[in-house]
């Protein structure tokens, strides 16, 4: 008793807090025995210290098997789910969900969500989060970080790194009573028993530590502030180049001039963009060569396709289209396709998809063509009207956009119209790069429908569709948006502003129904397009050659 009291000067301090009793044992065996006895006596809040691992000590002191593996395993399972979901979401597989729309980008032609590509990321997420769980879980389970331990105040305790074997029983333990525990410890073979205390004032966080934390915390704020500032900076200097050789690479941008190497341009024609070597075909271009109907509007096997390049390659048009007159003079008439290519035909023959392609064509026409040609195809789009107005003021030499109902256009085969859209004619620019071939055909479906609607008679409307209309449609109730049908005359509509054209379909529908009701033989008002667009588009594909055929149908 007496010797154990005279250990540490800090223990004698009045204002100190008592933590527990530290018992020293002579050798590992007596420590294990002491631990064992303490555990039998019901102590739980205790810890043993020795300079080296002692076999059997964890059993003697009653240390439970660590829960860390279970924690890590659970975290790994969650990380697996997280990894799956992360990519599920970022790949845009949840595209239709309002909360997590994601980023649906097609990469390498792989499915939007494909497990094999995601497994490496899932694996990485599992490894990362498992490592975090192991590292921080260990800290938490061990009560770390522990900046100070009152045991360190005990001089004797320093021997725990050389030859001391210690058992520490905390005051907080349920069975703890200072005198009783001290007696027990000595009874179990302790060489000495010390009170472990720490002065209360030293239990507070010291001022310099608070200051340090404050400084670190304010330094942490610096990067976000800098980033925030940088977002609104008006600094005129160009940004810093961290990797100059990545920012400025030796490569030609599209439409650049050829780089100069040793004083000469790298390419003799001074262009960076190269033509394909003769006799080669770029990936995906083979179909364009082989399917002349679909991609060029030219009948199979015609002279147009005997060269090794389709006509509409960029380098071709660059060379020919800079001189408008030259282009016009080269405007040879080819063996134009007189009916729609089979891809379009097969779609048209089905009712629903035929209607879909008609709608697509109308929508594309509105987007690309209506600016000049007008919504109804009379060549009175806003751009064209403006150009004509400038003409009157002698400020421009605008060429009026062609009306779709110009007799010359009316007589053109579909292949010729396709070529016009693809390569442009006169002032009209080529649209092949803006409008994919299938959409060009869709536009032609729409154009042909409009053309047929000008000259169609009741006979052009299929019998069943006619009856249907006759029985079901009440023209006055059917139109929701149409103005009264005074615009029945297409001549009148012709002179109207293009703005009125967007209601034309509905108008025409009304007109047609009315015409049928009266059984009038006014061919110009029977708008078969509006009456049954799907049928009429189908017909247009079939009858389209009849634009030139001598069949003498009233439509022609």
């Amino acid at each position, binding site marked *: 008793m007496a010797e154990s009291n005279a250990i540490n000067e800090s223990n004698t301090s009045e204002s100190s807090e008592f933590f527990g009793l530290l018992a020293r044992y002579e050798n590992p065996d007596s420590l294990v025995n002491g631990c064992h006895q303490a555990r039998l006596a019901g102590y739980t809040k205790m810890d043993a210290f020795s300079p080296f691992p002692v076999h059997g000590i964890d059993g003697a002191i009653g240390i439970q098997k660590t829960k860390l593996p279970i924690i890590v395993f659970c975290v790994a399972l969650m990380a697996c789910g997280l990894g799956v979901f992360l990519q599920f979401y970022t790949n845009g597989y949840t595209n239709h969900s309002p909360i997590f729309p994601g980023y649906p980008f097609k990469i*390498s032609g792989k499915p939007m969500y494909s497990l*094999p590509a995601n497994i490496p990321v899932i694996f990485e997420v599992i490894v990362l989060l498992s490592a975090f769980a192991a590292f921080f879980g260990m800290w938490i389970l061990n009560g770390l970080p522990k900046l100070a331990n009152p045991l360190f105040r005990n001089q004797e305790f320093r021997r725990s790194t050389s030859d001391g074997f210690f058992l520490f029983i905390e005051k907080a333990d349920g069975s703890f009573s200072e005198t009783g525990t001290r007696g027990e410890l000595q009874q179990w073979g302790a060489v000495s028993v010390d009170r472990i205390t720490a002065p209360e004032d030293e239990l507070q966080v010291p001022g310099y530590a608070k200051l340090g934390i404050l400084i670190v915390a304010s330094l942490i704020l610096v990067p976000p502030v800098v980033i925030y500032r940088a977002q609104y900076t008006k600094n005129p200097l160009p940004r810093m180049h961290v990797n100059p050789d990545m920012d400025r690479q030796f490569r030609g941008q599209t439409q650049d001039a050829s780089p100069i190497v040793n004083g000469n341009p790298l390419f003799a024609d001074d262009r960076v963009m190269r033509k394909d070597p003769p006799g080669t075909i770029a990936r995906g271009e083979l179909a364009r060569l082989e399917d002349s109907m679909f991609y060029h509007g030219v009948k199979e096997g015609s002279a147009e396709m005997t060269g090794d390049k389709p006509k509409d390659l960029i380098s071709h048009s660059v060379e020919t289209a800079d001189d408008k007159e030259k282009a016009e003079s080269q405007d040879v008439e080819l063996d134009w396709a007189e009916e729609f290519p089979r891809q379009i035909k097969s779609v048209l023959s089905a009712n629903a998809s035929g209607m879909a392609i008609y709608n697509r064509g109308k929508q594309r026409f509105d987007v690309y063509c209506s600016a000049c040609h007008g919504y109804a195809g009379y060549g009175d789009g806003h751009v064209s009207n403006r150009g004509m107005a400038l003409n009157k003021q002698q400020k421009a030499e605008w060429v009026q956009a062609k009306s779709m109902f110009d007799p010359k256009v009316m007589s053109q085969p579909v292949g010729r119209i396709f070529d016009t859209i693809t390569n442009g004619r006169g002032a009209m620019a080529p649209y092949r790069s803006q409008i994919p071939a299938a959409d060009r055909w869709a536009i032609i479906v729409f154009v042909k429908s409009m053309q047929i609607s000008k000259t169609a008679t009741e006979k052009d409307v299929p019998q069943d569709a006619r009856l249907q209309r006759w029985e079901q449609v009440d023209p006055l109730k059917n139109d929701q948006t149409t103005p009264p049908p005074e615009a029945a005359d297409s001549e009148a509509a012709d002179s109207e502003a293009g703005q009125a054209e967007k209601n034309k379909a509905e108008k025409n529908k009304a007109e047609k129904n009315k015409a049928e009701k009266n059984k009038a033989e006014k061919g110009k008002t029977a708008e078969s397009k509006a009456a049954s667009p799907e049928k009429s588009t189908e017909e247009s594909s079939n009858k389209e050659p009849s634009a030139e055929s001598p069949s003498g149908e009233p439509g022609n």
Partner: protein
Amino acid sequence: MIRSFGFGAVMVVAAILGFALSGNYSISDTDSHGWFKRFLFSYHVSFCFVLSISVGCLFVVLILNLTRAGWGIVIRRLAEIISSVILPLLILFLPIFLITVFGGRSDLGSTLYIWNNPEFLNSNEIMNHKLDFLSPGWFGLRVLIYFTILGMMAFFFMGRSVKQDDSGAKSISTGMQRASAPCMILFAFTVVFASFDLEMSLAPRWFSTMFPVYFFAGATMGAFATLILVSNLLQNRGILADDITEDHYHDMAKLSFAFVFFWGYVAFSQFMLIWYANIPEETFWFRYRLDWQKGWAIVSIMLLFGHLFIPFLGIMSRSVRRNRQYLFGASIFLLFFHWLDHYWLVMPQFGAVTSGHITVDSNEAPGIMAFFLDLILGVGICGIYAGLIFWRAGDKPLIPVSDPRLVESLNFKNP
């Protein structure tokens, strides 16, 4: 030993009879030796299986010496004995060797290796670049070189180790350790090319630089599973009962676990790169193995679970790694799936038709009956293999009794 050989021989003969009697395995009308071809493929599966175990055990011997591992002294002799049958295994390879090398570029010569088929070579331009390498003579020579290198290496370590049993000289240990480093390099090159030749060239159009690693990962896993199994069987008979402790099992199980996952990692790396690049010259190999109608997709899924997921979770815990009875079952499980892995590598090529289209195709599906015959043949080959091992074990002590660090190994404790 005799019983083992006898059992193995009976099973092999039974399997041959089974194949010969069980029906028509001909792929095409011109293919007159259909059942023999089917038998040879099945034989090759099991041969590669036992060979890979010995190769894996040779790796264990090398790595134990190379790392100067103390714990593994008690199991090193077992690995030495198993690896020392590599050269005798050449006898088992003789049927394939003779047919391929002396059959030449003919119908018979291409019974197993289709690159010997003139029709196939003519119809596949890509084969022009591989003709010289995959020629019967050069192939035979290479196989002999592989067996010689690996076999001599195994004999060397075995011999030195046995010599130490008498003298107990420490210099022998250091000598083995010194030799193990260059031997490891030689081993790596040999195994790479051997796996190319023996298994990957079954699909000569296909190529994967990951294949040798795949082979090696499976082989090493099989070796550790075999060591666990053999230790268990010996201890069940009271041999080495006190020498191999649960701490040694713990380490062997840890290494099995590591190579289970390494196998999965390599297998997936190989698959994903080919899947992602999506080049027909490479994908056809996996496409056939992922075909549900042919049934190979089922085997692939079985491998994914049986060779990776189930053992991964099954031998993850410390307590099961220290449980000998549990590991006994686990090692048999692992060995079965290691065999199935070779089945999956070899057997789909049976369907490869000689015309050499990218899609290997035939009317033949594995069929459960044929699979049983494959299993019987596998058991038979394993019987002969076990006989060879018993013959090699002979009167040698099953642990290096005079190794200077044997005591350290016997007292080894896993933390």
